[in-house]
C-alpha cells in the first residue's frame, strides 16, 4: 500500500475549495482537510477505487457537519458576519472548474441555505460534479439532488432582491426597548406579533427563564414584569447579530446581555435574550 501522500496532495486544492465555499472560512476549511488527511492515513487505501472521489466525499460530509455547528456560532456573533477573505491571485478559481460561489455576495447567500443544499450547489456549480456523484456524496437520490440544486439557485436569485438592512426593524426594536424599560404593557402588546416567542439563554443563570415564553399577552407581561430592576443603570449599544438588529446591554461597563429581535409585517415575532456569560465571552472567537 502506498503512503497516500501524492493522491492527497493532488486533490488538496479542490478539497480546500469545497470546504471553503461551504463554510466561508479558510481556517475551518484547513481544519477539515487536516481531519480528512488523518482519516485517509488510517484507512485501508487499497480498497479505495477512486481516491479523488473518496477524499471529496469525506471533505463534503465533514463540511456539512461543520456548517451545522457554525450556524449556531454565527447566531451569537456580534455585528455582521462576513466570510474570511482569501487571496486568489495564484489560484483564481480556488481549486474549482469555475470560479463560481467564491464572491462574498454568493458566500453570504449560501450561508442562508441548509448545509446539504449548500453542498449540492457548490459541487454542481463550482466543481461541475454530475448529479449522480453528488447524490452519492450527500446520500440522497439523484432527483432529490436535482431539486436541491434548482431550489438553491432560486433561493439565491430571490435573496439577492431582498433588502438587507431594514430601518423598520431597527425602529421596532428601539420602540420595544423604550416600552420595555418603561414597563409599558400596552405598547409592548402592540409591538408584538400574535405568536411572538421570547427565548432566553442564561447558561444556567437564575435570572433567565429557560422555558420560552409564547404569545403576545404573556410575553408583554413577562417583559413588563422585570422592567423595574432589570434596566436599572443599564446602557445600550446598538449592533447586529447574525443579520438581525440587536442591542448590547451593559452595566458598569460590563456587557451582560445581547437582545436580538426578528420581526415580520405582523410585528416582533421573536426575542432572544442572550445572557450566557460563556457565549458573551466567545462572541469574538470566530
Amino acid at each position: 500500500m502506498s503512503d497516500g501522500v501524492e493522491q492527497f496532495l493532488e486533490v488538496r486544492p479542490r478539497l480546500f475549495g469545497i470546504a471553503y465555499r461551504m463554510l466561508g472560512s479558510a481556517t475551518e476549511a484547513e481544519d477539515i482537510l487536516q481531519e480528512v488527511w488523518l482519516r485517509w492515513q488510517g484507512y485501508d487505501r487499497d480498497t479505495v477505487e477512486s481516491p479523488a472521489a473518496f477524499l471529496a466525499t469525506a471533505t463534503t460530509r465533514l463540511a456539512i457537519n461543520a456548517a451545522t455547528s457554525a450556524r449556531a456560532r454565527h447566531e451569537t456573533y456580534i455585528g455582521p458576519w462576513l466570510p474570511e477573505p482569501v487571496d486568489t491571485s495564484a489560484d483564481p478559481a480556488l481549486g474549482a472548474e469555475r470560479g463560481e460561489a467564491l464572491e462574498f455576495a454568493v458566500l453570504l447567500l449560501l450561508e442562508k441555505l441548509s448545509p446539504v443544499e449548500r453542498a449540492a450547489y457548490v459541487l454542481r456549480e463550482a466543481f461541475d460534479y454530475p448529479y449522480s456523484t453528488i447524490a452519492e456524496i450527500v446520500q440522497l437520490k439523484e432527483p432529490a439532488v436535482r431539486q436541491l440544486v434548482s431550489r438553491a439557485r432560486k433561493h439565491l436569485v430571490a435573496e439577492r432582491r431582498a433588502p438587507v438592512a431594514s430601518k423598520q426593524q431597527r425602529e421596532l426594536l428601539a420602540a420595544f426597548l423604550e416600552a420595555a424599560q418603561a414597563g409599558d404593557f400596552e405598547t409592548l402588546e402592540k409591538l408584538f406579533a400574535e405568536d411572538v416567542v421570547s427565548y432566553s439563554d442564561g447558561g444556567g443563570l437564575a435570572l433567565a427563564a429557560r422555558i420560552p415564553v409564547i404569545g403576545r399577552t404573556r410575553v408583554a407581561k413577562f417583559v413588563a414584569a422585570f422592567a423595574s430592576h432589570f434596566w436599572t443603570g443599564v446602557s445600550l449599544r446598538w449592533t447586529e447579530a447574525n443579520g438581525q438588529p440587536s442591542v448590547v446591554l451593559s452595566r458598569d461597563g460590563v456587557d451582560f446581555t445581547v437582545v436580538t429581535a426578528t420581526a415580520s409585517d405582523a410585528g416582533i415575532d421573536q426575542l432572544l435574550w442572550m445572557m450566557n456569560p460563556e457565549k458573551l465571552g466567545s462572541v469574538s472567537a470566530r
Partner: protein
Amino acid sequence: MTTLPPGERDAVVHQVRDACERRDVPSLHSLLSPEVVALIDTGGDLIASTWPLTGDEVVPRLLDALDGAGLSVQQVNGVCAIVARRGERVSCIVSFGFEGNRIARVWITLSPLKLRRWNS
C-alpha cells in the same frame, strides 16, 4: 447583483482606491449607489460592532477604516478588492458587490482572525 463586465468592475474598484487615497468624498459618492449597504466584520468586537451602514453613513466609515494605510488592489475571492496595509500588516480588506454600474455592497473585514492568513 453583477451586470457590469468583470474588467469594468475592476476599473471601478481602482477608482474607489484612488478616491480613498485622495479622501475624495464626492467621487466616492458617484461610485457608490445611493442605497449602498456596508457590512463590517469586526470579529465580534462588542465595542466596534455596528449596524449595517446605509447611504451617507458608508463613506465616512470606509475612509476611517482605510485611514493612514497603504492601499492596493488585489484578487480576493476571485475579484478585485482593496487590501489595506499598515507597515507590513494587512489591517483591513474591502470587497465590493455591484448593482448596475455602481457599488451596492461594501464588505469591510477588520476581524484580526479573518486577516490572520494574510499576515502569516
